[in-house]
């Protein structure tokens, strides 16, 4: 049993699942950057006190699940989303979808995701993949971060669909409900609302650890890490920051480049020069995030490690915060034609 499905590789799993599933209902114009931007995917948060894998809880993108949800909503595409308590029910529903020719998105944990290299298998439960068919005891899997499709056995798929812990997927399945014709006008409207929401989330959420304010807050924290945590733990924390920023699926520079690409694509739909100027700023921000990562690596490799080195690292983030602030402030002020 195989549905009609074409695998497209993407930088990020949820963007990838979104565009692949949209293509399956005949929506071909939504690229990864468009899905990311329409879904207001860019974000920054450093959750104080919470620890993940013994390090800081930092994210460069919005909450898992939101990009698919917002993108579909903005394009006025109804979505089916189901969670399960029973494993057999979860598999039955999956089979029914595949029988009707419907490829589906699944939220999974990566710890037992057998095709992932061991080095990447942490208890992270918000990975997304598409099941597009079955063959004997195996399910056909399109994991958007990979160049090629793969398979999982029934047992393997069940195990990752029912991974436990934070963000437990509980067998979650989702897909766009029906075929839809998306006009350029709908896309234009979706781009505008996506930008507006993203600007709001980066600038105006009144919490010190979110958005541009969150980047500044992190800068301040980093400058204190050396004294407060000692060199070893400070190095571990910086390594975790770099992984959140650069690992699988950010497209580089903590999603800032994908957002820069989105603003360029948006310009093709809505020719306003502020979009191109802001795209350049996002590229600049992404480049600085990567320079900061190089500085951090110097510290966690033990090559450098004085207080001055931590200060340089923190100052990178302060500079980034200013650039992103400028970009989103101009985006928020756009008077659309």
């Amino acid at each position, binding site marked *: 049993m195989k549905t009609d499905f074409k695998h497209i*590789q*993407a*930088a990020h799993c949820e963007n990838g699942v979104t565009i692949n599933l949209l293509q399956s209902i005949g929506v071909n114009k939504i690229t*990864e*950057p468009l899905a990311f931007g329409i879904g207001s995917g860019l974000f920054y948060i450093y959750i104080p006190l919470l620890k993940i*894998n*013994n*390090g800081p809880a930092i994210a460069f993108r919005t909450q898992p699940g939101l990009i698919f949800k917002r993108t579909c909503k903005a394009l006025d595409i109804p979505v089916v989303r189901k969670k399960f308590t029973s494993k057999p029910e979860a598999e039955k529903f999956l089979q029914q979808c595949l029988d009707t020719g419907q490829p589906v998105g699944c939220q999974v944990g990566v*710890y037992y995701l057998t*095709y*992932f*290299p061991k*080095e*990447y298998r*942490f*208890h992270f439960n918000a990975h997304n993949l598409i099941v597009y068919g079955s063959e004997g005891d195996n399910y056909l899997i399109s994991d958007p*971060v*990979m*160049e*090629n499709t793969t398979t999982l056995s029934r047992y393997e798929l069940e195990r990752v669909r029912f991974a*436990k*812990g*934070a963000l*437990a997927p509980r067998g979650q399945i989702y897909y766009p409900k029906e075929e839809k014709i998306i006009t350029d006008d709908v896309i234009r409207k979706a781009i505008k609302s996506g930008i507006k929401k993203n600007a709001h989330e980066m600038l105006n959420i009144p919490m010190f650890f979110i958005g541009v304010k969150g980047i500044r807050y992190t800068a301040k924290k980093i400058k204190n890490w050396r004294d407060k945590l000692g060199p070893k733990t400070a*190095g*571990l924390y910086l*390594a*975790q920051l*770099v*992984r959140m920023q*650069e*690992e*699988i*699926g950010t*497209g*580089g*520079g903590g999603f800032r*480049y*994908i957002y*820069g*690409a989105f603003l*360029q694509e948006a310009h093709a739909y809505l020719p306003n020069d502020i979009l191109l100027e802001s*795209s*350049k700023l996002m*590229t600049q921000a*992404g*480049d600085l995030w*990567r320079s900061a*990562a*190089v500085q*951090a*690596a110097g510290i*966690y*490799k033990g090559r450098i490690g004085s207080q001055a080195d931590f200060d340089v690292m923190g100052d990178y983030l302060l500079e980034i915060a200013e650039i992103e602030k400028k970009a989103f402030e101009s985006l928020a002020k756009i008077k659309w034609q």
Partner: protein
Amino acid sequence: MKKEEIPQDNGALNKLTKEVVYAVDKDGNYSTDLSSGWEIKTTALDVAWDDIAQRIAAAKQKVLNKEASPILFFMEYRLMDIAIVAAYSGFWKLTIKQHLKPAVFEKLSTEKLQRYAETFNVTVEDLKNMTVHED
């Protein structure tokens, strides 16, 4: 990031796939390319795994010194914290903290040991003896 700056170092993910990155050409236009990895993030991942190895070794020593039960060892080995062990095993976090004591662990029923064994994906014997098989 400029096209010509896209790193092509060898990363662990490269065993599975190259990954998509976004970069600009000389006119500043974005498009995608594939990258085999970036040494900066490979090292970041190595740092994390070195720390995990140290945690596992420290846990093992604690179990051997009778300062902790094998649950601590497997918790570190499986990269879990108490919350994750609780989610998989169904035990309360406070109960698990009790079971981390060697004397309490010794007296656990086979049924309870079985729940931990399943949580850590090992046999009850391996759980008791701190034996791991690569999987």
